[in-house]
């Protein structure tokens, strides 16, 4: 499985790269517009290791941000899934905040939280939590009457129980969404770094962008891809284990 993930990623990456090179050579573009294979290769040799460190750094933040996002989305979905005023208010707030581009909100975040790890995590979480939230709200607001009926009529329903039932019935979907959102966590972290940090692969990308250095960007994308695939795989693996255990018991 892991092995398949990785070689599929290689295929995708190579396809993309070949496409770019094909574009370059059919139009006879200079190395400045699209770098030559040798250029990319030498950049790779030089930067693969330092960039790997940066990607790992980024991954670390992404993992924490991902966890925060999951909790955040769960809490918002639980409150926002309620049919009352507060619920719709929270949902409204959560949706609205999402509509604001992070670049516009970033200055406010920096004013309020400084520009340390907190802000980076916050930005990551803000970007990552929304796809989760959407699915969570979808799941949490759809009743499972055949299971919930008993609790409703016997007065044993707590605020938590319907949520538990609905989440449990949709474990497969939840796992898909949670592990899938790993990629959003990664991209969120990179954007946070792009905006604010002086470390991590997002920061490297920004420099490469200013220097119009597509080779470096390509190397960075390669590493991001591998790293994300690994993280994704790890989560899906865990998800599968959880599901198996739930079925067995």
């Amino acid at each position, binding site marked *: 499985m892991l092995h398949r993930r990785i070689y599929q990623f290689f295929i995708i990456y190579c396809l993309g790269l070949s496409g770019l090179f094909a574009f370059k050579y059919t139009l006879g573009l200079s190395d400045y517009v699209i770098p030559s294979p040798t250029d990319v290769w030498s950049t790779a040799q030089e930067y693969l290791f330092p960039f790997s460190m940066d990607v790992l750094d980024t991954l670390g933040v992404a993992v924490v941000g991902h966890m925060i996002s999951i909790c955040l989305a769960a809490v918002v979905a639980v409150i926002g899934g309620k049919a009352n005023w507060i619920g719709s208010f929270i949902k409204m707030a959560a949706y609205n905040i999402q509509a604001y581009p992070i670049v516009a909100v970033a200055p406010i975040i920096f004013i309020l939280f400084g520009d340390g790890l907190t802000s980076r995590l916050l930005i990551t979480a803000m970007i990552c939590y929304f796809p989760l939230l959407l699915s969570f709200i979808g799941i949490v607001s759809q009743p499972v009457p*055949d*299971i919930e*009926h*008993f609790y409703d*009529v*016997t007065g*044993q329903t707590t605020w938590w129980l319907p949520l*538990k*039932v609905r989440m*449990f019935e949709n474990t497969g979907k939840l796992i898909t969404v949670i592990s899938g959102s790993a990629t959003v966590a990664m991209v969120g972290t990179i954007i946070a770094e792009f905006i604010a940090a002086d470390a991590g692969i997002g920061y490297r990308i920004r420099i490469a962008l200013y220097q119009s250095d597509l080779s470096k960007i390509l190397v960075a994308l390669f590493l991001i891809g591998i790293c994300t695939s690994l993280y994704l795989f790890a989560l899906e693996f865990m998800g599968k284990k959880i599901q198996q255990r*739930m079925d067995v*018991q």
Partner: protein
Amino acid sequence: MVTDLKPYSEADNYKMHIDLKGISFRHEKTDTLVFQNTDYRIQGPGFNAIFGPSGVGKTTLARIIAGETRNFNGLVDKMGTTRILYTYNMERLPNWSSLGEHFSAVSGASKKAYLEEIIDIFGLGSVINARFSQLSLGQQNRANLTRYLVQDFDVLIMDESLANVDEATKQRIILKIKQAFPEKIFLYISHNVVEVARFCKDIIVVRRPNRQPQVKTVSGFDFSGKEEPDQQTLEHIMLEIMNAS
């Protein structure tokens, strides 16, 4: 023994009962008329049946009585029967714990001993550690009914709750219920006329809305494990049920 409306005296009003007064109900979306100005009184404790052809409105009636359907016309008047529970055979138990754990979680401490007895009589002992999804259909039926029996209720409506259970087990279960809850009202929905005639006190026969009265009562044999009904009495009751419906 067929009566259009079960007669009751003024004094009866102070005993536990459920009065349906001028009930009319129509499914909004399909415009299916199910009840038209129906009156009925379910009287006193006992194991009663709701009987009638498929699609006639038994489930609808049960849900009206239980208060789960609200958009009907007419009045449901309850006396001494505030806690009405409705259970149906499609219900599922959450799959996150075993039957045993689930039963303990939903029943008060006072019902522990009693719970164990039910589990035994219901034949669920061998699957007490299984999850709901690992049960056969009849086991699922029984598991669902079990947890309702350890709740507080005055009236329990069982909508085909034992439809997928074999007859021997079913008899054990019904007799146990009758013995354990002599002071409660049960409304047992079933398509098995033999069973209904044999075990039930009153058989509430529901008929098509164009027939008046729409609900009739036939008295059943109300077998409670002591004297076996003789074949003829049973057949007579069954005939009455058939004629009524």
